[in-house]
């Protein structure tokens, strides 16, 4: 399990990185390497040139203001997880990152790398969609900003074009009075989710006023649960769980089968997680 030969470069500016990326046929960005290097060790990925972005100046920053959190392409997941300011503006970041891999993985893995990798079972893409994150991309043709909702196209497939690089991602602050819950079923601690849910819930007076619900591990891309978002409005613990669960089932009809779980299981599980999230948000509101 050793990678096939490749060339390597380590630019110090984004411009240099972009030049390098377009200089070779199968060039790849190397960020944390926590998804790319295993794939290369298995010889599943064809790479002729690896462009290591870790030493590009300014790319490893995590910036935080009342309007949101901006995470640079070389900032590690640990950096963000440990960032108290970021957690207070976008609580979903910490909630999601706690489910990502293990300490050693997060110490190298980047937030932007996870978005670029677009694993259908990953937490961060779902959080990006749930929170209307905006992904900043530089490429041979200049810069553009892509809404998370448009960024994920399929499993391991994004709106990034050849030679493009994510430079940062901006997570807008959560609406006041809301909390983000990231919950999932995974087989073991630190595993990718069999099925999961990011729920940004606004609760008031013992009932859910509104919620953004995004499932993951269900299909190729994070799945907005629109019927459930409608069904959860004004939901209170004494309401039957069934209608909410049924709405989730309707939203997730395309969930896939694999060796870890069947389609119906994934749908049921996300339905259960949705009810659980509503209950948790209401309990938190009551406690506050």
């Amino acid at each position: 399990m050793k990678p096939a030969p490749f060339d390597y470069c380590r630019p110090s500016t984004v411009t240099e990185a972009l030049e390098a990326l377009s200089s070779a046929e199968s060039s790849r960005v190397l960020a944390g390497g926590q998804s790319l290097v295993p794939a290369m060790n298995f010889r599943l990925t064809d790479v002729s040139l690896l462009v290591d972005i870790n030493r590009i100046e300014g790319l490893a920053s995590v910036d935080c203001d009342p309007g949101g959190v901006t995470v640079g392409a070389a900032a590690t997941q640990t950096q963000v997880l440990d960032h108290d300011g970021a957690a207070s503006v976008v609580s979903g970041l910490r909630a999601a990152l706690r489910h990502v891999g293990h300490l050693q993985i997060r110490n190298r893995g980047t937030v932007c790398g996870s978005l670029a990798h677009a694993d259908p079972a990953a937490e961060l893409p779902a959080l990006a969609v749930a929170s209307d994150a905006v992904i900043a991309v530089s490429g041979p043709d200049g810069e553009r900003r892509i809404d998370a909702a448009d960024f994920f196209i399929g499993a391991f497939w994004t709106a990034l074009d050849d030679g493009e690089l994510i430079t940062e991602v901006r997570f807008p602050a959560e609406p006041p009075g809301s909390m983000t819950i990231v919950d999932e079923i995974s087989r073991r601690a630190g595993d990718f989710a069999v099925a999961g849910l990011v729920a940004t819930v606004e609760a008031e007076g013992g009932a859910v006023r509104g919620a953004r619900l995004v499932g993951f591990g269900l299909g190729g891309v994070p799945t907005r649960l629109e019927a459930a978002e409608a069904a959860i409005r004004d939901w209170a613990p004494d309401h039957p769980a069934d209608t909410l669960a049924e709405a989730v089932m309707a939203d997730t009809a395309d969930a896939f089968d694999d060796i870890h779980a069947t389609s119906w299981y994934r749908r049921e599980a996300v339905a259960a997680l949705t009810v659980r999230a509503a209950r948790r948000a209401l309990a938190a509101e009551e406690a506050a």
Partner: protein
Amino acid sequence: MTISEPISEVDIEVSINGRTRRHRVPARLLLSDYIRDTVGLTGTHLGCEHGYCGACTVIVDGDAVRSCLMLAVQADGAEVRTVEDLAPAGSDCLSPMQQAFHDNHALQCGFCTAGFLMTLDSVDPAEWSEPERVVELLSGNLCRCTGYQNIVTAVTEAWSAYDGSGGSNDG
């Protein structure tokens, strides 16, 4: 530091356990193989080479990382610590954590042990105090022999020793 032209072999300078090493390495050489084969420190083990088992865990610039998921060239300029560096140099003693592993029968075949020790060494010892936190911390290291129970006990015990002495600790 910058390498602007694509190259297939790179000159690197890495501090390993406090000693500076210079080598010319293929770009594709994994840090794990560099440590084991090029430098000859075989205490770091390879159990999966895809990031799951944790046997290859080393400390790079203070953080526990999988050495099988890093290229040697990425450690250029970095400070790397391996299991060989844990016991106080020049003595027969073990570090408090190594000693606690020994005292609590927290290793059997020992293949996973270096990874556990390096993960533990990379964090603030205060994190050893809470069994639940310890379980979370260690969930990135697989052990097939011990069933983990004695490992968790050893960590809690090392904390008591550390806390009790109130002194410094290099394990």
